[in-house]
């Protein structure tokens, strides 16, 4: 991966399109084939998928693999660094989830950039619906 670009995977959950850096993505699978345990996440801070058609298998912080169920895997994009924007401080201050880390400007439209490991960490049973608040400038 060059410093000039980021490779992102575009996917859709519910009505919104999100982008995530490919380095956290293990593979793309069929969630119906996967076992329905806590490794299958079908609802997150991003919302609930309409239909469990695709699963993004994510390598989590603790080394485990968890699958985020999404409506659609749209494709891959190379995003130049200067097309990546941070999350505005106010948004970072007020959003309950820290999973949204910024925006990828695709065709000048900001697409939400999501850190999937963080997202899935927030979904861990025990951390229930209240993931930790992140201050701006936190990693």
């Amino acid at each position: 991966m060059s410093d000039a670009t980021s490779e992102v995977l575009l996917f859709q959950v519910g009505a919104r399109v999100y982008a995530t850096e490919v380095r956290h993505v293990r593979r793309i699978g069929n969630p119906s084939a996967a076992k329905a345990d806590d490794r299958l996440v079908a609802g997150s801070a991003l919302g609930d998928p309409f239909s469990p058609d695709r699963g993004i298998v994510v390598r989590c912080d603790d080394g485990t693999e968890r699958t985020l169920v999404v409506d659609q895997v749209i494709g891959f994009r190379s995003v130049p660094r200067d097309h990546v924007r941070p999350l505005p401080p106010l948004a970072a201050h007020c959003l309950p989830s820290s999973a949204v880390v910024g925006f990828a400007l695709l065709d000048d439209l900001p697409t939400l950039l999501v850190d999937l490991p963080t997202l899935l960490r927030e979904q861990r049973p025990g951390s229930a619906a209240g993931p930790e608040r992140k201050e701006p400038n936190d990693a």
Partner: protein
Amino acid sequence: MPEPQKREPGTPGAAGAEGAGPSEAWYFGLRLMGARYAFEAPLVTEVVRLGPLTRLPAAPNFLPGVFTHRGEVLAVLDLSQLMGLQPVPIRPSTRAAIVHSGPWKVAVIADAVEGLVALDRRQLEPPPAEGVGVAEFLSAVGRDGKGSLAVLDLPRLVEAARARSVNA
């Protein structure tokens, strides 16, 4: 990462613009549900039309989304909803004032934009003691020929927003 403040031509400087006396200061007025609010004029870099909004997941209601302006992603703050009032209707004609203070840069939307207002510094009063609702993010209350004007403090606004988003 503070950005250099952008100044539109015609924006008055901090001291002594034409029409403002030595005891006067410039403010930028907004109208909300019939009441008048203002930011210190130097903090307001621009007044823009809202572009298409990207909504944020699980965001509080006073944060309708973000939009891109000049390549920058800005958060939109609905002042009305922050005060617990009705949402500002977002139309193509809706104007946002981009307000900048320290690390905070926010596109504030209101019912209407009044523009530059000169207030007598000597006539500024501290905000009312009951810190309920609006008072907690005012820095002062001023008066001019048209009536009273509540001066907003952006950091305090942000704090109020954060406090409210916990409960949202």
